[in-house]
């Protein structure tokens, strides 16, 4: 054993965020280089804009768009979820999104660095990913 690192998650990778949204059940996700306006349940343009958008038609009849806006200064995506939609997209849903996101990022990072994927399992309420590092 040599070290144990605790890490906090923030949304930085657009592709992994989209993958996480798909894993959470939203298969139709819009991706824009330039942030687009979010649309409310009255078909009204909201003040918020986003680069990653789940349109309200995929969320529910009385819902607003869900969006994640790229904050270039902070280097993270900021989520825009209306108070109404936070009923369904509550902290448990957001935690699920974060878990899927972290897993997607870890798999991508491991592949990019040449680590060999050994397996995935659930242990004591945690997703466990195991890799081998054969680099010298």
């Amino acid at each position: 054993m040599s070290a144990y690192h605790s890490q906090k998650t923030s949304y930085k990778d657009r592709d992994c965020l989209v993958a996480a949204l798909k894993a959470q059940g939203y298969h139709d996700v819009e991706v824009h280089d330039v942030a687009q306006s979010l649309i409310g349940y009255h078909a009204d343009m909201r003040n918020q804009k986003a680069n990653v958008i789940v349109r309200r038609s995929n969320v529910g009849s009385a819902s607003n768009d869900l969006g994640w806006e790229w904050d270039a200064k902070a280097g993270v995506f900021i989520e825009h979820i209306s108070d109404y939609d936070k009923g369904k997209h509550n902290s448990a849903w957001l935690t699920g999104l974060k878990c899927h996101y972290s897993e997607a990022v870890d798999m991508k990072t491991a592949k990019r660095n040449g680590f060999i994927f050994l397996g995935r399992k659930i242990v004591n309420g945690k997703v466990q990913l195991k890799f081998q590092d054969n680099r010298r």
Partner: protein
Amino acid sequence: MAKEIIIEIDLTTGDQTVDLNNYHGKGCDAVADVFGRAVGETVKVTHKGEYNKPAVNTNLMRH
């Protein structure tokens, strides 16, 4: 011994821990940083016994 990376994502918080086995010294932190930077930020590091032990060179030829 093979170097091994075990990542555990907590399903109740979404945050993760990276456990590194059979790494020595700064190489250990470098690997953890790769995941830390990718996923967000590292908030706590605990070095274990092997951290300060010299790496064993497995490429030595024996005569």
